[in-house]
């Protein structure tokens, strides 16, 4: 009824421009007489088509197949689904160029992610066209494209500021994670390496292998068990030692507490890789000083091969835990020390009035207060110990060898086993399955921990 409404073809139902925009991006906006917006959406449409045509092999009268003619998107999706159809072959003219399944998979994923981003713009365009028409039909004044974009721009501060970080995360974290998940469902390993061979989708076969082939299952269960023991004992011992040291340092009788504190912080301050490699040399069986000293003193008759003697796997494990204790206690000491200075003296005075001894004060005041603050960090420490690549790999390299295990030694954690599997033995598919299992375990623990903390509820 208003003049504005009559200006833009009255009576057109809202879905019509929407449908038009769905077919040819921006055409709906054109029907709504919004040329600027139409150009904006059409630009994306043109880029999509242009990219596909430009990278593909399109010409009149072609015999279309995605492999030969498809551009970035079509060939990408084809590659993602089939992982290639033509292996490298020896012919009269020499080696033909076969399909490289892994390149195809990576390109396919990138094409899929790009299409996903474009789909967001597409949906935005379709909804905008329909909504704007609905608003016009309801009698609203038409908005110019310029006003619309100005409004969007003001509200887009968050997205603009976030975009550099998010682009980095999408291409350096999300894409690799998706890629890793996909590899778990293929037969990509040393027997099947592109470009010589084609990689195939195998469904859940790799998962079945780990849980059905006895030697794989035995290794998995064994390594998993040790990883849990390691993570629990390592966390508990470092916390206990750090707590003890902090309480002792807080004692008023200690002379020069700051000097002691700085000395004890050294293992935390020295780069982990240096300390681990130093310990590895000290515990070197053949030339290391500790074996030598034990022989010199007469405690052992011959040199002890700490990390390479298959008959003493538990010796290697115990030494690794001790070294980890050396590395890990200062952090908890510093942390607990910080909490201790914040406990008001009045608590202890009140306890003394009631006749509590030093041990009772420790048990009923210090311990609960410290524990309350440090508990979430314990979970964090557990998780980082669970994936403690550095200590095990640099110290023992997983050794001593274990004849019952597949590609794993007695001190191998899941994460170092993964390293052996993928890098040393190129069993990429099994490695990918292992990564997913680790993710499930770590993720469950983290989610449980988060649920208890207030971080999630305050989101």
């Amino acid at each position: 009824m208003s003049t504005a409404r009559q200006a833009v073809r009255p009576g057109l139902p809202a879905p019509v421009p929407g449908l038009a925009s769905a077919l040819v991006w921006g055409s709906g906006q054109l029907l709504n007489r919004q040329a600027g917006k139409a150009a904006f959406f059409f630009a994306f449409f043109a880029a999509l088509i242009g990219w596909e045509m430009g990278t593909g092999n399109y010409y009149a009268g072609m015999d279309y197949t995605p492999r030969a003619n498809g551009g970035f998107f079509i060939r990408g999706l084809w590659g993602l689904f089939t992982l290639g159809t033509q292996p490298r072959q020896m012919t009269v003219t020499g080696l033909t160029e076969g399909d490289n399944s892994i390149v195809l998979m990576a390109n396919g994923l990138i094409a899929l992610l790009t299409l996903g981003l474009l789909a967001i713009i597409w949906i935005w365009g379709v909804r905008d066209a329909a909504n704007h028409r609905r608003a016009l039909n309801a009698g609203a004044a038409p908005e110019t494209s310029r006003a619309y974009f100005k409004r969007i721009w003001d509200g887009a501060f968050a997205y603009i500021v976030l975009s550099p970080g998010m682009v980095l995360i999408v291409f350096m974290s999300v894409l690799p994670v998706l890629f890793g998940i996909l590899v778990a469902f293929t037969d990509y390993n040393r027997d099947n390496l592109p470009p010589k061979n084609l990689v195939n989708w195998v469904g859940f076969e790799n998962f079945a292998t780990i849980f059905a082939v006895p030697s794989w299952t035995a290794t998995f269960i064994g390594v998993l068990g040790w990883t849990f023991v390691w993570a629990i004992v390592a966390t508990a011992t470092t916390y206990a030692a750090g707590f003890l040291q902090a309480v002792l340092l807080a004692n008023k009788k200690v002379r020069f507490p700051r000097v002691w504190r700085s000395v004890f912080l050294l293992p935390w301050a020295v780069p982990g890789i240096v300390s681990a490699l130093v310990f590895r040399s000290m515990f070197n069986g053949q030339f290391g000083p500790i074996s030598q000293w034990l022989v010199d003193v007469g405690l052992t008759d011959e040199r002890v091969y700490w990390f390479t003697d298959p008959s003493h796997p538990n010796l290697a494990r115990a030494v690794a835990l001790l070294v980890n204790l050396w590395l890990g206690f200062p952090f908890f000491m510093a942390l607990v020390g910080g909490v201790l200075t914040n406990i008001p003296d009045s608590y202890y005075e009140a306890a003394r009035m009631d006749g509590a001894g030093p041990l009772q004060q420790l048990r009923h005041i210090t311990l609960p207060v410290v524990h309350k603050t440090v508990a979430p960090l314990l979970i964090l420490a557990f998780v980082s110990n669970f994936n403690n690549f550095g200590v095990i790999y640099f110290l023992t390299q997983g050794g001593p060898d274990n004849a019952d295990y597949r590609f794993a030694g007695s001190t191998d954690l899941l994460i170092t086993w993964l390293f052996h599997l993928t890098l040393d033995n190129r069993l990429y598919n099994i490695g990918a399955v292992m990564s997913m299992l680790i993710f499930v375990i770590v993720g469950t623990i983290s989610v449980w921990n988060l649920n208890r903390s207030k971080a999630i509820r305050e989101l």
Partner: protein
Amino acid sequence: MTTEQAPTLTASDPAQRARAARRRRRTAPRADRVASAFLHLELLVVAAIVVFPLLWIVGASFSPGTGLANASPIPADATVEHYVSLFTETDYGRWYLNSLYVATLNMVGSVVLSALCGYVFSRVRFRGRKAGLLGILILQMFPTFLTAIAVYMLFLNFGLLDSLTGLALVSIAAALPYNTWLMKGYTDNLPSSLDEAAAIDGASRWTIFVRIVLPLMRPMLTFVAITQFTMPWMDFILPALLLQSPEKQTVALGLFAMIEDVYQNAFTTFAAGAVILAVPITILYIVLQRYLVTGASAGAEKG
């Protein structure tokens, strides 16, 4: 014992009472002294255990000879030849500069990006905020290793392998989710009345961020800067995967290769390299320990 006797004594004889009091005063300090002696003995033992390996590696770096067997904590005829040969016979200088480059880039990139993302997630309400926060939280739980392998395969295909800048970008991305959560958690605890006042005065969001919030975030910025600067010096998995040519190695890779030798023939040179790597980082950590401990516990509070 003295305390039990005290009541009976008070009743009988003031002289005896004075003696008992004196005895009590004397025994109490003695018990104190014994406790104090035990305390310091424990501290001394722990300090010895802590210091010995470090002393040993420093000693080894000055020991004559090349092998592990030659290493001694206090070498009789100390020499600096290993430090010299480190720079003349190995590529240590090159590795050091490479690590420095990656570390600097990683620090700057991480601080800038995580501060921006943390501020936006904390202060701006926008669509997809909750999904974004949860998404990066889940991403952070994925073992870096799975990502690393995939990054390797992707880089291989796109010709980005063997690039120090590529390594720095991957490191920034890998740590960004966690750092963003840290920054967000820290900004949440800053009073929002300051920004609101500035917004009423007509300041734009960008001005508010740069002028008001950023200076207040300094402790957390320091924490992220230190951790991200020191990380590339110790990181092994990613550089091992992504760097290949000898002139692109980092210190960690070079040192590890030195010690890989079964006969430990380059041990004293390794020791010298380890000392040069460790000393600056150790000093940095000890000097800035307050920031580092607070930052780490803040991370725990916010998951």
